[in-house]
């Protein structure tokens, strides 16, 4: 089987989420990559070095600069004329584009796969990860998105794939990019950090979040996450949300502070290796999944912890 993997990037750097998708695709067959962007040559060069990649297709066009689904889906559909599977990381970009490709191909997408059980069979989480479904497709072509935490990352070095320029129809003229507000951070990226410190509603406001959660995270070299309640209340931006409908993380250590442990939150972090919870309520559900639980007032315990580390 020949697979076409969507390369996640910002026209300069290739994003790590791509590497897990490459591993998933390699379980299906030959791996080809698609770099669609504008002025994205450095990404294409990086893509060609990923181990196990047979070919890199590069579509360099202003219309693809922001990965608008309306513009890139037809390009992918064209390339699917000689590929059997389209594989995308389950990032917001992948989730935006892949179903559009699937519908144009008249294929039912398989979302957020956890494992490849065979050429046409996969496991995937349903009901916020409270159940795992094994699904078998009868479609001739495959469209799948890949949960990044479920697959090892392919090595970013060691490959020397051929790079081929391709072109598509470009701008469909029905959508345009206006602007992006992307926060720059010195901290590690949430979905690939080895330690994550998350705060919940108990932080009460953004100053507390900033003064209590962030110093601990910085001491640990950790990424910062949050519950939905903390995001909804505006303590932190939307991209901090961990959970069923936010980001999925599985770090070595996850520290949940003032988070109750609703199933929607657990869905995003329960595959972390070690879970630590700090909560003043000894019956908080988060303690049912925590390896180490500290029943304490976070306003006292967290500064003390930061200090003593």
């Amino acid at each position: 089987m020949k697979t076409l993997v969507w390369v996640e990037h910002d026209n300069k750097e290739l994003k790590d989420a791509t590497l897990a998708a490459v591993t998933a695709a390699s379980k299906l067959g030959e791996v080809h990559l698609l770099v669609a962007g504008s002025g994205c040559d450095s990404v294409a060069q990086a893509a060609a070095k990923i181990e196990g990649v047979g070919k890199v297709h590069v579509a360099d066009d202003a219309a693809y600069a922001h990965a608008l689904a309306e513009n890139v889906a037809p390009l992918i559909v064209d390339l699917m004329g000689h590929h059997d599977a389209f594989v995308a990381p389950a990032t917001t970009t992948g989730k935006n584009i892949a179903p559009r490709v699937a519908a144009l191909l008249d294929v039912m997408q398989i979302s957020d796969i956890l494992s490849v059980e065979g050429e046409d069979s996969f496991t995937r989480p349903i009901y916020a990860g409270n159940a795992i479904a094994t699904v078998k497709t009868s479609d001739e072509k495959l469209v799948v998105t890949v949960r990044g935490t479920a697959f090892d990352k392919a090595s970013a070095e060691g490959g020397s794939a051929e790079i081929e320029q391709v072109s598509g129809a470009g701008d469909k003229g029905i959508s345009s990019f206006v602007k992006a507000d992307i926060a720059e951070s010195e901290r590690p990226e949430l979905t690939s950090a080895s330690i994550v410190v998350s705060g919940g509603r108990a932080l009460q406001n953004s100053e507390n979040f900033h003064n209590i959660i962030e110093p601990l995270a910085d001491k640990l070299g950790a990424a910062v996450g949050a519950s939905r309640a903390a995001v909804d209340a505006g303590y932190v931006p939307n991209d901090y949300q961990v959970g069923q409908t936010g980001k999925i993380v599985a770090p070595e250590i996850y520290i949940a502070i003032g988070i109750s442990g609703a199933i929607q939150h657990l869905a995003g972090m329960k595959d972390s290796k070690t879970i630590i919870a700090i909560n003043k309520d000894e019956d908080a559900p988060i303690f049912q999944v925590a390896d180490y639980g500290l029943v304490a007032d976070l306003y006292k315990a967290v500064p003390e912890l930061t200090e003593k580390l």
Partner: protein
Amino acid sequence: MKVLVPVKRVLDYNVKPRVKADGSGVDLANVKMSMNPFDEIAVEEAIRLKEKGPVEEIVVVSIGEQKCQETLRTALAMGADRAILITTDERVEPLGVAKLLQKVVEAESPELVILGKQAIDDDNNQTGQMLAALLGWAQGTFASKVELGDGKATVTREIDGGLETDELTLPAIVTTDLRLNEPRYASLPNIMKAKSKPMDTKTVADYGVDVSPRLTVTNVSEPPKRQAGEKVADVDELVAKLKAMGVPA
């Protein structure tokens, strides 16, 4: 302008799902079912756009068993004007739902379709994007802000790195994210009023599209259970545990 809002009936988000022992699925017998939370946000957004002016009529549609009419009544009680129930006892996948919705769009000619970004039962996150593809329309997924202008919609989207704003030519598809709005509760008088709002009942067969599933679910199982660990007595003990794991490095 007319807005179409597809709403799905799902297991209530407060209910812990139970996997059936025979591996055939999640037990939905005698459990509370509700409107998919993202669809409540979609209905709310349509109502707000109507209150602001540009929208004249809100049509809600649900595909599923007869009981989906309860979900539609909830949407009508919130403030939608009219409902379409498309009944079937079979499982319909996002691709099939999108094909049925395409037919509804062709018949109703809305300028905007607002869907949830994800149904919290199957967690597919596909239908809106598929419908946009079938119609050849623009899509503003994971929206946290929607502004309607002259023949255009400006949509702010929640993306992995932060926020992105795109401009879409109407007609278009929008899918909702959590921060778009906070849905209202239906008041008692509005619940009463909703009982007399029009609801059209159709069957999948009326639309003449093949929606048979492409995927077979061969097994549904529980994920490995995580065991609760230990409670530490104080911060010092937690520091010791972290140091034993080599942290901070």
